[in-house]
């Protein structure tokens, strides 16, 4: 299996028939991108991916709109945890880091409005002394009462 096949297979396994939670999908998407130094352009049902000087590869990703929007919202939350108020709910340009890859950073831009959802991201090298890990929030348990914003 060559490198191209490897990251495409990993992305396909992650996104074509998602069996993971939103949080796990985002964590894995970031890890795959960092491990393979990928550039990703994902809009509607098409994910294009690019590595180094290679050609852009394309995957058809038919997931529920609510899943894609939650993935974008999670990335925005991670960016705001790292740099407060760096992106809005609906659009922005941010960066996130992953503790397993202290020498790399994900730069991304996105739109997450009702009518327009897309994500562009790229793994880039950073100086080691500027690394700031992304904090992980604890997972808690179920209750009956739910709430939402109005």
């Amino acid at each position, binding site marked *: 299996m060559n490198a191209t096949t490897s990251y495409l297979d990993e992305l396909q396994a992650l996104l074509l028939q998602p069996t993971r939670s939103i949080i796990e999908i985002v964590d894995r998407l970031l890890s795959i991108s960092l491990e393979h130094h990928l550039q990703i352009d994902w809009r509607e049902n098409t994910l294009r991916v690019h590595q180094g000087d290679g050609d852009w590869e394309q995957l058809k990703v038919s997931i529920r709109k609510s899943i894609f929007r939650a993935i974008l919202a999670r990335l925005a939350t991670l960016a705001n945890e790292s740099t407060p108020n760096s992106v809005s709910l609906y659009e922005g340009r941010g960066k996130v880091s992953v503790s397993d890859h202290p020498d790399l950073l994900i730069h991304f831009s996105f739109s997450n409005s009702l009518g327009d959802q897309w994500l562009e991201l790229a793994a880039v090298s950073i100086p080691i002394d500027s690394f700031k890990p992304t904090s992980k929030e604890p997972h808690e348990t179920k209750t009956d009462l739910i*709430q939402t914003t109005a």
Partner: protein
Amino acid sequence: MILIRGPDPTFVEPGGGPPAENFSTYLETGPFLLGSPSEYARLKALAFPGEGGPAILAVDAPDDIIDLAVDAAFPLDQGIVQYDLGTGLEELCVAWPSLKKHVLPVSGP
């Protein structure tokens, strides 16, 4: 609007665009992995300044309806209860008039 009429998959945000299609909530206890409800409400109010300011709507939803919204992408231990058509939204709309609800104020934005 949501308090009185309930979730509306045909709702269009001020300024136009496609319908909402779904309805997103958190468990009251969290975790709030997409940002806290109060912070989300403030950001939403900033995006729509003509909508009366930020607020949180708390709803006591029955377990059997919540269970319809649970799947691999949205397990309950991650705090998000995502109602889509076919995963609990229709049932939530039907039950809405009888559910206990109250509005929590949010300071700001």
